[in-house]
């Protein structure tokens, strides 16, 4: 519980600060752009689907690469940490999805006020699942590289395959357009596939990280 609390309080707060700063920067960019051209798309959507998921992936990497060795050095087991990290990935993804949604709410108000146009964006559930999978894939890749070094490059295609799953139905991602038919047929059932991708990422992370050595690092 201590590890979960630490991860959640520090990284959710950090994520919220980053999101707030980026949101203000996006608004500023939109106002600047409106001087020269018509605004016809949501800048916040661009950020949330294209940049935010990379940030969430980095958080997953950070948790395993940086915090796990510290937890072990303070007498915690990998099993304890991975349990906490799994719970953290859910809370963090949810927090980031809510922040994304909050951003759309505020940005929508501004767009209405300024009479700007925008495209439809993904649901909170779709964002939650996308962040959840990307956080899990970040943890998986960090565990793989930590354990096997450059040999973990073989895991990259596997991680990529998992990462594209939740983005397929997300407006604005443009992930693998050639298999768009499958998600359409499944409808909201595709969210279950996304959930499955996260589960696979976490199971693989557990399997790899349970034997992860703590290497000597230069600080």
């Amino acid at each position, binding site marked *: 519980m*201590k*590890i979960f609390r*630490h991860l959640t309080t520090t990284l959710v707060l950090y994520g919220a600060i980053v999101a707030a700063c980026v949101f203000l920067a996006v608004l500023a960019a939109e106002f600047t752009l409106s001087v020269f051209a018509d605004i016809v798309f949501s800048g916040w959507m661009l950020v949330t689907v294209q940049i935010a998921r990379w940030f969430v992936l980095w958080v997953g990497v950070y948790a395993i690469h*940086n*915090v796990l*060795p*510290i*937890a*072990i*050095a*303070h*007498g*915690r*087991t*990998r*099993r*304890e940490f991975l349990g906490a990290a799994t719970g953290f990935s859910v809370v963090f993804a949810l927090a980031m999805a809510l922040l994304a949604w909050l951003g759309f709410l505020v940005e929508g108000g501004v767009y209405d006020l300024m009479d700007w146009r925008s495209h439809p964006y993904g649901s909170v559930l779709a964002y939650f699942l996308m962040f959840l999978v990307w956080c899990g894939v970040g943890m998986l890749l960090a565990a793989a590289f930590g354990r096997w070094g450059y040999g973990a490059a073989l895991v990259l295609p596997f991680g990529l395959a998992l990462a594209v799953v939740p983005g397929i139905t997300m407006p604005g991602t443009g992930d693998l357009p050639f298999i768009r038919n499958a998600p359409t047929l499944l409808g909201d059932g595709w969210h279950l596939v996304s959930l499955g991708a996260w589960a696979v990422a976490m199971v693989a992370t557990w399997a790899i990280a*349970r*034997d992860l*050595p*703590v290497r*000597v*690092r*230069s*600080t």
Partner: protein
Amino acid sequence: MRVDVQGLTVRYGSVTAVDDMSFSLSGNKIYGLLGRNGSGKTSLMSALAGYRRPIGSVQLDGEPVFENAAAMRQVCLVRHAADAADKGDKVAHVLEYGAAWRDTWDNPYALELTELFKIPLKKKVGELSLGQRSALGVVIGLASRSPLTMLDESHLGMDTPTRYAFYDALLSDFMAHPRTIIISTHLIEELASLLEELVIIDSGRLVLQEEADVLRSRGTEITGNAADVDEFTAGLTVLSEKSLGRTKSAMVFGQLDDSGLVRARQLGLELGPIALQDLFVHLTEPVGGKR
């Protein structure tokens, strides 16, 4: 805390860092883990701390350590710089980790030590000097109050006054809170008075495990007339010799029996102890290109 190592092997690819090592430490002592560079000290300590899955058996008070929550709670290993710190974290946050995650953590003592070693709490770990980072490692190790505390060359980079402050802090804390402390060091003579038992390893294998005083008694420095010293040392294991004019000094390994002591007195030779460091060098010296 008792430590039992049985058939421990640590490999990195084709390199064997620890090779089928077995020994036991009865506990509640300050142990010196001595070995040359690359002898396997850090790998051995990493296995003792559960930092890597061991091939063989590592048990603390009869419990396997790797991924055993109860055993892991009892261990703290500080290698070179602090493992328990991220370079982006402020020192104050590093201490907060300890307070939050370690049941045995003594935060007032940690703050006392940071003041003693003059480590600024608001600075990031990555901005500290090498000596300060080493001192932070020592703070984490000592303040953890772990029943098994291991310091792997933790005083590397500390200046002499800081090292002496560390030795004093270590001894007084050990007296107040006896536990099993293992220190690896190359500054053998500086720490010699603190070490109760020595474990000497070389090329991943155990060379010797001995009480420090017993080991000291195994070496003798003989000084006197060169011809008398030569006569006396004939047939003994001579580690090194020095001559100045007609006076000669020789270091021999192996306990002298009563007849030897009588003969030395008859020849007017002076007998004295050998520094642990000299014995260590001898015990790990390459012979015929191999150790």
